[in-house]
């Protein structure tokens, strides 16, 4: 038997130069430069832990460099819960190889066999009290080499930092208000920009009377490029006043009609679509179907609704532009900017700075192009552009609405013998940098506009989009999974946390619950009986045990379970919801068990799962983008309420540690299972199934009326 040739981690294969990942700096510090970015998920800390472990240096010596197209490895986009898998593996390998190269150099200098050398906080020592350090040797050891396969990283048992709950490196700055967010960073000579956007959906600026705005005393400049217009001023207040005045001089086209927000399924199922068969399984022989249960589930458009409005800065120098952004992908954004500006990519430097949590593709990239266009009118001074809350809630892309139909064929014993799952949804990704046309909002507004990019779905190999988590992990004998992607897009959609997984898991797990109830079988036992994967069964058993499943029936209290393995390849997560309800419901407690393989920072994993569970509860109980036939109507927190402190349930998380297994991300594991667990708890409590999210008082009352 021949062993497969050892291969490099994917990010290292794409960026093999060791010095692009690791550098020893003069002040006895280590600069670690990942291509992934901090979006509040704690990735920078987890990556520092991995580097500290492999290099054997104190984590305090590590300086994490923000991603920039000027120097960082190109790791695409920080999304899909892949940062630990991609950047973590690359850094682990790169640091292990760097350590080995230094040990070879130390061996030569000290005259001691490399295998006898030890590294302690960067100091390399050996028998006879000989010693040197990474920093002493840094002049002799070039890291301008490509990584080689075959270097072995430490075993799980010998890691000292990874696997422990190290405190996050960014939190002290945030607690002591040291500027860290792009919104707070003051470049010398900074000007402020605001962009004029329509209230009517799809309307285009066709005429603009600039006279009133130009007459303002504090005015600096108006930038105009076709239907794109904005103002630049020397303070935010002046910019806002100028924008308000400019708006009075604007004439807009009619816009494009929006669907009926109360008939999303009707809309989604009546549009032209591209149909893809995602998966089929044919049974050799199955018992005959005695009946078929057909159910339809929907979820609405959901807003990213970042707590900070999107923000960017840009500064031109001749035909070169520097951009500061909280985009999830600096290289991808640069590619789109290059298309719009008709400039070579090397004329553009895009550097990451932290923004608020984005939960997917929000307006971060859009506002970067806005800043670049407005900065053209700023005479070489930097311009910071910040969107309004109104624009953040109406012009940023939304998570796509979905209609999901499942038909389950049941035999005479109500066992599942066939399963047909069909999805109607816009695509779940229209990120920049991946197509010949730009995905940025202002690109559709300028004088020679690009068409609005219709969202597509990532391929199944990358977890799919609308179809994400649509293939059951359960061993049903036969199934057909079909995805219908809309070819029209009146409501702009792109990647929102979990893409289609939240909708699909909600649908699958709701129907499973219904079938278990039909069979008078415990829903936990029913799931365990249909799973072959022991790690899947372990999280379900752990959550059930922790929640003391299933507590005695009490009036007004309900319990529900939900399970998924994110993308069917990532983190395993089981959730149990305890709710209290009559015609309105309150989620009291969520109990989750999760398996992310090796948990690099266990508290970081718990934080992500807790946060995901709470955000998922907010989606399920409250969230729905509102619109009439002409405009997005949910443009404030009053019109788009999210879960408040008093409404947040207790959340209890258990991690099943598997230090020997590859680490995977935790950020998106909870959303699907939580949606299903809450819906199933509603049935347990009230005896009705709500199949259209969000589960509001009105929906519960409607379901009760339908049942009676």
């Amino acid at each position, binding site marked *: 038997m021949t062993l497969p040739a050892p291969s490099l981690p994917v990010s290292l294969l794409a960026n093999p130069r060791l010095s692009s990942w690791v550098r020893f700096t003069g002040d006895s510090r280590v600069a670690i430069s990942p291509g992934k970015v901090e979006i509040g998920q704690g990735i920078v800390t987890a990556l520092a832990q991995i580097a500290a472990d492999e290099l054997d240096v104190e984590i305090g010596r590590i300086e994490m460099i923000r991603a920039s197209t000027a120097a960082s490895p190109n790791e695409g986009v920080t999304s899909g819960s892949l940062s630990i898998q991609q950047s973590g593996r690359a850094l682990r390998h790169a640091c292990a190889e760097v350590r080995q190269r230094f040990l070879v150099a130390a061996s030569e200098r000290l005259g001691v066999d490399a295998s006898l050398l030890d590294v302690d906080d960067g100091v390399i020592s050996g028998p006879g009290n000989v010693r040197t350090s990474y920093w002493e040797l840094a002049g002799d050891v070039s890291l301008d080499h490509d990584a080689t396969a075959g270097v072995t990283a430490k075993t799980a048992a010998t890691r000292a930092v990874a696997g422990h709950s190290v405190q996050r490196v960014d939190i002290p700055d945030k607690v002591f208000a040291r500027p860290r967010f792009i*919104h707070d960073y003051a470049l010398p000579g900074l000007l402020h920009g605001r962009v004029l956007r329509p209230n009517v959906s799809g309307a285009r600026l066709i005429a603009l009377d600039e006279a009133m705005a130009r007459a303002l005393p504090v005015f600096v400049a108006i930038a105009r490029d076709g239907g794109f217009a904005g103002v630049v001023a020397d*303070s935010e207040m002046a910019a806002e006043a100028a924008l308000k005045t400019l708006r009075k001089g604007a004439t807009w086209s009619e816009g494009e009609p929006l669907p009926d927000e109360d008939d999303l399924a009707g809309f989604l199922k009546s549009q032209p679509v591209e149909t893809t068969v995602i998966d089929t399984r044919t049974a050799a022989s199955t018992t005959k179907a005695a009946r078929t249960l057909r159910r339809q589930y929907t979820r609405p458009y959901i807003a990213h609704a970042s707590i900070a409005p999107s923000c960017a800065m840009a500064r031109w120098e001749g035909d070169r532009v520097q951009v500061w952004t909280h985009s999830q992908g600096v290289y991808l954004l640069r590619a789109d900017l290059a298309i719009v500006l008709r400039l070579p990519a090397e004329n553009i430097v895009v550097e990451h700075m932290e923004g608020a949590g984005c939960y997917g593709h929000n307006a971060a990239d859009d506002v970067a192009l806005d800043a670049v266009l407005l900065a053209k009118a700023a005479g070489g001074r930097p311009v910071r552009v910040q969107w309004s*809350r109104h624009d953040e809630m109406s012009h940023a892309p939304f998570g796509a609405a979905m209609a999901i139909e499942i038909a389950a064929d049941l035999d005479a014993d109500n066992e599942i013998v066939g399963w047909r799952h069909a999805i109607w949804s816009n695509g779940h990704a229209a990120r920049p940098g991946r197509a010949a046309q730009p995905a940025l909002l202002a690109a559709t507004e300028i004088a020679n506009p690009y068409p609005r990019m219709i969202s597509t779905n990532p391929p199944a190999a990358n977890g799919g989009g609308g179809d994400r988590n649509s293939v059951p992990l359960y061993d049903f004998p036969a199934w057909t999974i079909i995805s219908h992607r809309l070819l029209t897009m009146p409501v702009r959609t792109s990647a929102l946390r979990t893409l289609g997984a939240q909708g699909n898991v909600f649908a699958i797990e709701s129907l499973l619950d219904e079938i278990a109830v039909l069979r008078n079988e415990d829903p936990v036992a029913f799931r365990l009986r249909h799973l072959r994967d022991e790690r899947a069964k372990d999280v379900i058993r752990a959550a059930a045990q922790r929640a003391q499943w299933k507590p005695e029936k009490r009036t007004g209290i309900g319990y529900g379970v939900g399970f998924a393995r994110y993308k069917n390849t990532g983190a395993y997560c089981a959730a149990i919801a305890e709710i209290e309800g009559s015609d309105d419901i309150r989620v009291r407690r969520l109990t989750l068990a999760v398996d992310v393989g090796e948990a690099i920072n266990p508290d970081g994993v718990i934080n992500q799962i807790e946060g995901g569970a709470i955000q998922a509860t*907010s989606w399920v109980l409250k969230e729905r983008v509102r619109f009439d036939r002409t405009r997005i109507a949910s443009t404030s927190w009053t019109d788009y309420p999210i879960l408040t*402190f008093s409404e947040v349930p207790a959340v209890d998380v258990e991690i099943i540690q598997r230090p020997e297994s590859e680490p995977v991300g935790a950020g998106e594991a909870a959303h699907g299972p939580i949606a299903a667990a809450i819906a199933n708890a509603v049935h347990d409590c009230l005896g009705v199934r709500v199949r259209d999210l969000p589960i509001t008082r009105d929906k519960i009352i409607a379901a009760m009326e339908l049942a009676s």
Partner: protein
Amino acid sequence: MPTIQFQLNGAAMAVDADPDQTLLEVLRGRLGVTGPHFGCGAGECGACHVMIGDRAMASCDMPMWSVAGKDVVTIEGLGTAEQPHPLQRAFISEQAMQCGYCVAGILISAAALLKRNPSPTEAEVRTALDRNLCRCGSHNRMVRAVLRAASEMAAT
């Protein structure tokens, strides 16, 4: 423009400002005090909270004329890395955030609560923070941190 006098984090301030300009604009734009954050501009999210007396208030829709003579505390006035407020210490201990953009306002709401009520129940902490939105779902960690700070302050 009239000169408006007020106390900011214990220091006397005199700012020439349009009386209708908001306190948040003056803090961030004029004084370089960037702890309070802009979130909505409508007093709905709490990211811009400042403390006046023992009350947390939105500064994004607070006109400067109403600030005259007031004692204003922002997150910068709570404590420093060398001399942290117990709440700041507790937020680090509990790792009570994800992105942290809302945290400056939440620390202020919590500090105002502890001034009014040094030993709040969990329910009282949640009620006091209801005007602050957190999108990342770090609520329970923040509540734990506030309770930890309260018990630490009671012990000293």
